[in-house]
């Protein structure tokens, strides 16, 4: 893990000399902050003495001791050195120093401290204090003798309970941290946290700036807070997880693009977008909004991968609308060029500000523009295909059949194309155009030499029997193509490996795999073969879950086996990829055919239900009719038998 680290120290605004010391030893991974104390310039001597001792100790024993033991011993050696120095000179009695140090070993950081210099860890935006101040007040709080809220106001809050130099040996607290990507650690003297709010420290530490800048800003923070003490800071940073370029484009890139929409529109206007024939009749502002802003928004949607009209749709709509109005290609081309130039200029300007983002945007916007061009290409292809289809229709309708049994004339006049009633306006225009190879004036001129063309050899369909632009029409059948021997060999190997992995009783599975092997060779996707294979596998079974689902279990299991086996065969990657594609196509056809059989098997139930419902309806009608008949008969009987009823009431009795 590549770690960046920087340290800085400042005397502050009040003190005259800097009693703090620091060690930044990148080679040994040793980083220490020391805050000396004691009168008669003894503070700086204490911190420097400890610094030298620690540095020397680590320099001699790095690699020979465990980091934890090494750091503890080094700090203790510092304490011994300071104690010795204090004892040697009377004026320096009582001098001492705090110490907080980090020993970095790969991703592991050992933190040791004595006194009130602190170590912090900023992880995922949260600031953790790794050390506990060795002050009297903290000791009292730790023992429950003082409330934490009273500690800040306690008169002894700055009185240390431990330091280097008071005794030859010092009790060192050790903490170990395993660094994670994006972590930031900081060690500092009390000159920082004593004069800067902890929230502000967290903000600066998490700013994302380089460690050197962060260290400088933290010191400035303390100085702005009064700078009553020496300030020393060391900042350590592990690199954050690299953010994928996709994410950058989706977030920062999309926003940066959208923020510059006004500039984009201005560039479009400067490029002549408002004068383009496509927007003729529109006000300049309307044209800019309709075309410029829409395409800007479409690119934004593409960058952000959000829903809405994207570049492909925009280009298709624009071009389709223009072509429907019989617009020419040049205007569309010019419009696309203006848009592309404006977009590239905007990206170039962004690149000046942020080269990395500019580069990513360049790629993403270029891709969007290529997508737009592809959409136009697709539309043009459709138009060409339509024209071609019309030509075929016209040709087929007008070329007379040639009887091969008769002697074929060497040269035949080329027939004039006449408009076909089913032809499109495009075809009509083409038909109305003068023939390219034959000139009508010369045809009718007697004695003039006629332009001759070779007649079709057999029948018109032999000339051209199908459109020749197959792309963008995947559903169009391509016939006569088969996989190469290499690919088929790879398919065979894959199926062999897959079959070898099946259980002995998995007959269904082996049948499916064999069917896949057969179907994979046919690139054309002959569905009949798939249906036959599916029928073999289907056999005879009940149309319910118990009968049908094992089929799909076998199909799914075979898919898993094939996917695993194809990676195990020893063939070049391109062949392997083609083999997998062939097998996947075969798989898809087989499952479709199988589902078709299931649907077919389910059909009779619906038919039978309809028949049963029909019978029921007829029976109900018969019952109703019989009921009416019975009621009628009963009424007749009642009228006949009940002679006591007065005249006039007969026949009106309600039943």
């Amino acid at each position, binding site marked *: 893990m590549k770690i960046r680290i920087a340290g800085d120290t400042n005397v502050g605004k009040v003190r005259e000399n800097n009693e703090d010391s620091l060690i930044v030893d990148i080679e040994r991974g040793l980083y220490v902050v020391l805050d000396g104390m004691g009168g008669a310039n003894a503070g700086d001597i204490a911190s420097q003495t400890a610094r030298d001792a620690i540095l020397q100790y680590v320099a001699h024993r790095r690699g020979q001791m465990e980091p934890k033991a090494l750091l503890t011993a080094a700090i203790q050696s510092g304490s011994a050195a300071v104690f010795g120095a204090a004892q040697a000179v009377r004026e320096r009695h009582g001098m001492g120093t705090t110490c907080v140090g980090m020993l970095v070993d790969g991703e592991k950081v050992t933190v040791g401290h004595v006194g009130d210099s602190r170590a912090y860890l900023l992880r995922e935006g949260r600031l953790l204090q790794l050390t506990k101040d060795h002050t009297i007040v903290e000791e009292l709080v730790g023992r429950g003798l003082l409330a934490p809220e009273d500690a800040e106001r306690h008169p002894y809050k700055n009185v240390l309970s431990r330091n280097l130099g008071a005794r030859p040996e010092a009790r060192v607290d050790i903490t170990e941290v395993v660094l994670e990507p994006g972590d930031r650690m900081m060690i500092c003297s009390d000159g920082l946290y004593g004069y800067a709010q902890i929230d502000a420290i967290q903000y600066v530490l998490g700013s994302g700036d380089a460690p050197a800048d962060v260290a400088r800003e933290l010191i400035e923070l303390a100085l702005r807070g009064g700078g009553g003490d020496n300030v020393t800071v060391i900042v350590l940073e592990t690199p954050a997880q690299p953010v994928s370029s996709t994410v950058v484009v989706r977030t920062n890139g999309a926003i940066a693009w959208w923020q510059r929409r006004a500039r984009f529109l201005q560039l479009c206007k400067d490029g002549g977008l408002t004068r383009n024939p496509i927007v003729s009749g529109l006000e300049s502002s309307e044209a800019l909004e309709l075309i410029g802003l829409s395409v800007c928004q479409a690119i934004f949607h593409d960058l952000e991968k959000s829903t809405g009209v*994207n570049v492909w749709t925009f280009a298709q709509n624009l071009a389709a609308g223009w072509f429907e109005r019989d617009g020419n290609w040049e205007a569309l081309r010019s419009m696309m060029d203006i848009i592309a130039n404006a977009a590239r200029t905007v990206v170039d300007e962004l690149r000046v500000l942020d080269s990395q983002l500019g580069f990513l945007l360049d790629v993403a916007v270029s891709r969007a523009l290529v997508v737009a061009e592809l959409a136009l290409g697709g539309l043009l292809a459709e138009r060409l295909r339509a024209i071609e289809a019309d030509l075929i229709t016209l040709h087929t309708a007008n070329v007379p059949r040639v009887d091969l049994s008769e002697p074929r004339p060497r040269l035949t006049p080329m027939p004039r194309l006449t408009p076909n009633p089913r032809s499109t306006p495009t075809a009509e225009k083409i038909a109305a155009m003068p023939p390219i190879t034959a000139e009508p004036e010369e045809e009718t001129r007697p004695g003039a030499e006629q332009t001759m063309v070779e007649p079709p050899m057999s029948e018109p369909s032999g000339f051209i029997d199908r459109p020749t632009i197959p792309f963008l029409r995947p559903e169009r059948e391509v016939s006569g193509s088969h996989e190469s021997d290499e690919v088929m060999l790879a398919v065979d190997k894959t199926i062999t490996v897959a079959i070898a992995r099946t259980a002995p009783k998995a007959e269904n599975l082996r049948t499916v795999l064999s069917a896949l092997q057969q179907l994979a060779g046919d690139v054309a996707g002959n569905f009949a073969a798939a249906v036959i294979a599916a029928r073999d596998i289907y056999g005879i079974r009940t149309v*319910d879950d118990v009968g049908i689902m094992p089929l799909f*279990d076998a*199909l799914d299991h075979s898919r898993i086996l094939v996917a695993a086996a194809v990676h195990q065969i020893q063939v070049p990657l391109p062949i392997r*990829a083609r083999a997998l594609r062939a097998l996947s196509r075969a798989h898809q056809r087989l499952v479709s055919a199988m589902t078709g059989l299931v649907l077919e098997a*389910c059909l009779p139930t619906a038919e039978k239900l309809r028949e*049963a419902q029909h019978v029921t309806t007829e029976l109900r009608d018969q019952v109703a009719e019989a009921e009416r008949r019975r009621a009628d008969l009963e009424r007749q009987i009642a009228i*006949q038998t009940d002679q006591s009823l007065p005249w006039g009431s007969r026949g009106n009795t309600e039943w």
Partner: protein
Amino acid sequence: MSDADMYEAVSVLRDEVLDTVEHGDRDPPGAEVFDAVLRALNAGGESVPGLDLTLHDAISRRLAWGDREDVVLQDAEVVFDRLMLAVERAFRDLDDQMVVVESATLVAVTVARVVSRAAVDRASHERAARLREEMAQGKLKEVLERQKATIARLEGELRAAAYRG
């Protein structure tokens, strides 16, 4: 390519594969299949068959709204074919291609399974409904027989009364 990048790379093929231009802003036919492929890619390319509940739900909804099973299946086939072509064209890295192809096959099998299960369930319901119809027919026939007997009796009585009169 990571799963997330793969997801993004296939997402951009949406318009091409689903031919969204043809179908406007509405979800075009087969969108549920394309979305399922994306989910499969996001999930690392493998899942337990039938666990894509969203795909189940989407297909069930289409069937509930009146789309026939064969139409759903046909849309899935079109999406599969178009995706195959688009991926072959758009992905340079063959390993990435293979990942997408595997996911597409997974989804194709799942769609077939869901459609088949729906058809089988429908057939079961229809069989049950037919059984109910047949039971109703039996009862109706009984009623009809009784009515016929009653009508015959009443007609006899009426004739007798007419004779007496």
